[in-house]
């Protein structure tokens, strides 16, 4: 593992207490050029995670609070007539930042949601007939509040698929919480964070993820997992080939973070909950143990 990546993790861990796994998941998501959906209650550190990551990685950060009256233009930007030059000048929206926190994405109307999701997918936006590329590390962290669904527009399954991973923050453990409560204000800590990595290096790491080796034996394993979800009676639909690709790229990124140049089954198993939990629906309502059951059901070939 590159030294700077190590530093990134170390610094992030010092700022976000007791969430090393979540930090790594977010990082893996970023390295695999995916986007992250965090689903949890307010106040468990979703925003902090985004801010810490952007500071540590030296990425431009923008935050969009999704509300029911949010318009696509509020995300993408708008052309305004300027009297001085007698021209329309484009004022880029928050989407043109390198890291975007889309807070409570399910509060906005589908129209606003799709503006964000299309940008995520295409890595570019077309506004008023002009196609504008988005900056090159481009990473969206969207958050969703699982409770209080009244008056929300939950993302449809097809849109959930746009997120490489979906994770939950969870409450900090007692020790971490103690540190949180007794320590300095988080905002101060975040303000003090220094970038540990250049954008160019991040892009190079993203390239490197693609080079991580995947052996035929591992492909067998991934295929066995996909096949199981399709043949098992537990799931309403099996995983799509795109989900298979997502599994592989996330596992590659995880292997890189773990300092290896080849993916092993353990990588797949560890990222599997994050990658498949929002793509699979069970017949029964027990989403939490779902992915663990899936892992246990598929033997490693």
């Amino acid at each position, binding site marked *: 593992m590159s030294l700077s990546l190590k530093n990134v993790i170390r610094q992030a861990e010092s700022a976000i207490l007791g969430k090393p796994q979540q930090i790594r998941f977010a990082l893996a998501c970023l390295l695999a050029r995916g986007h992250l959906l965090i689903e949890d209650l307010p106040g468990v550190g979703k925003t902090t995670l985004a801010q810490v990551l952007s500071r540590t990685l030296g990425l431009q950060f923008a935050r969009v609070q999704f509300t029911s009256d949010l318009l696509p233009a509020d995300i993408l930007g708008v052309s305004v007539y300027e009297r001085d030059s007698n021209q329309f000048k484009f004022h880029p929206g928050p989407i043109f930042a390198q890291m975007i926190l889309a807070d409570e994405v399910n509060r906005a109307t589908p129209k606003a949601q799709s503006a964000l999701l299309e940008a995520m997918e295409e890595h570019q936006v077309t506004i008023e007939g002009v196609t504008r590329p988005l900056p090159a590390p481009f990473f969206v962290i969207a958050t969703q509040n699982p409770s209080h669904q009244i008056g929300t527009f939950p993302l449809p399954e097809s849109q959930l698929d746009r997120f490489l991973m979906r994770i939950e923050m969870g409450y900090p453990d007692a020790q971490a919480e103690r540190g949180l409560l007794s320590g300095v204000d988080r905002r101060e800590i975040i303000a003090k964070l220094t970038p540990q990595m250049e954008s160019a290096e991040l892009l190079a790491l993203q390239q490197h993820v693609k080079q991580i*080796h995947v052996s035929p034996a591992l492909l067998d394993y991934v295929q066995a997992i996909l096949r199981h979800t399709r043949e098992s009676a537990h799931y309403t639909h099996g995983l799509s080939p795109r989900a298979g690709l997502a599994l592989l790229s996330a596992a590659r990124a995880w292997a890189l973070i773990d300092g290896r*140049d080849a993916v092993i*089954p*353990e990588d797949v198993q560890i990222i599997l909950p994050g990658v498949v939990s929002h793509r699979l629906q069970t017949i029964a309502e027990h989403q939490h143990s779902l992915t663990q059951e899936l892992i246990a059901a598929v033997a*490693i070939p």
Partner: protein
Amino acid sequence: MSKSHLYGLLLSILMVIAPHADHLPPWVSALCIVLLVWRSYLAWSGNPLPKRWLLMVITLTSLSGILIDFHTLFGREVGVTLLMLLATLKLMELRTARDAMALIFLSCFILITNFLYSQSLLTALYMLATLLVIVTSWVHLHAPGIAVKPRLRVAAVLLLQAIPLTLILFILFPRVPGPLWGLPQDAFARSGLDDTMSPGSVGRLALSDAVAFRVSYQGKPPQRAQMYWRGPVLWDFDGHTWTPGRATQGIAPQFSATGLTTEYSVTLEPHNKHWLFALDVPDSISVPARLTDDFQILSREPVNERLRYEARSHLTFHANLQESQAQLQRALQLPQTLNPRARQLAASWRADDDHAVVRRALGYFNQQNFYYTLEPPPLGRNSMDDFLFDTRQGFCEHYAASFVFLMRAAHIPARVVTGYQGGEYNAYGNYYIVRQSDAHAWAEVWLTGQGWVRVDPTAVIAPERVERGLSAALTDSAALPFMSRNPPLWLRDLRLNWDALANQWNQRVLGYDSERQFAYLSRFGLESVSLQVIYMTAGLGLVIALFALYMLRHLFKREQDKTQAAWLKLCRKLARSGLPRAPHEGPWDYATRVAIARPALADAIQDLAARYVALRYGAIQNERAQSEFIRRATKFGRSKNK
């Protein structure tokens, strides 16, 4: 669904339904052929399949055709017809692979129905060929990329692999005594001896070379001239036809053997009558049967399946030395008014004793210009007179009938016996084939002090008939079936070879009934019926389970490379020491768990896991690293065992 798939299926269906053309209404076969041709044309031209309503119309029309033809929708014939029509109609809506699979299974099912009509060796061979075609199109369906030859090979290998299981099922599967669902048609349609005899009736049989039964003798076979297979005995004569008449209360059959006995086993083809044929005069028989007053053996049920029995006969004997008056009276009955010249002739001999009368009658046949032929001229009302004095041309029934007539006219009790005489020796199977063309009729007279004595007037006129067979006795053999004449030697050999093979098939495959199965399994000590069933079930289950296990292992083995095999072996070793690897547990996770549980092994197992991970999941493959890993993995087990 590509064209080649379709042509394979078309061929399968065609081969499956072809044998049924023989016994189903012609319009069914015609309709099937039309549908097949139509489907081939559609495939060839690329035109769309017919509309649903049209198929419905065809289906309903053929259904009413069946109703009109058979008056029912149940039964064997109707079932087979329906299946055939549905299979061909299914072709017309063949769109998906699922349809094709349904068709393949349907073909297999229709194929089996062939056995309801014929179970001969030839049928079995044909069905095997058909099955190969079906399996080949099945293989093609699953692996579209394979060329015809490898496809055939795969199908053949599949069939070969099925042989062990087939054999086990054949030997062990409980047999149902008696047929399950009706008999092959060939049990009924056979010609054979009748229980009446009129001029020309035996001669007609001589034209058929169908097998009547096959005999193998234990020990030396008797002389050919002694091979008289007794069938129906005829007592009553109405001037034209001989019939068995109504049996009177006779004396129970009794005989004293005076010489040779012979033992033999007979495999009787079904003839749908009660007679079981045995050499004169039968002593014992291995199937339940009754010996009548006149030494016929009658089975309880008509013989409508191939029947095998052992029998013992005495070749020289005195039969019924004491005969009841009623029987003797019966053996003297003649129509009163007919045939005055024959009566006159018999009366002229009467001066002598009975023996001399018999001799004179035989001498009459010998010295007068009698002629043995299959095509005798027709006889008038006084048939005996016409034959004895005018036409003097006849087949064995003429001679037997006229001889018995003369004897009765001379007050010597006599009766006609029909049956078979002789047979063809098959050196390839060491048995005799008795055909319908060996059908014969002879006479028996009752002489004081000797009982019933066999007299064969045919032997006097044409001794070759008895000594060498029909074709030797007839000068004009053109009317005989080809094979009963003198075919080229190689053809004869071929036919005997084939018959020997068919005989084996009958004996070992078709004849393997519940009794034989029981006898066979008894050899392995499975006498008790309940135990037998338990053993059979258990054995069969075990074999199937072992086979399945073997197949599964085989399947998994192919997935494993040497590295993985060594790793799995290592895991099994650890499992035996109480640390089994869960199937979904990755190598690293497992090594970590083992290291925690057995700190002493930590270094070794982590080293091995690292090597395994590098070899199995790593980018660089290295044979030396592989052999090193395998060596260490093996050593790990050994050092641990110490």
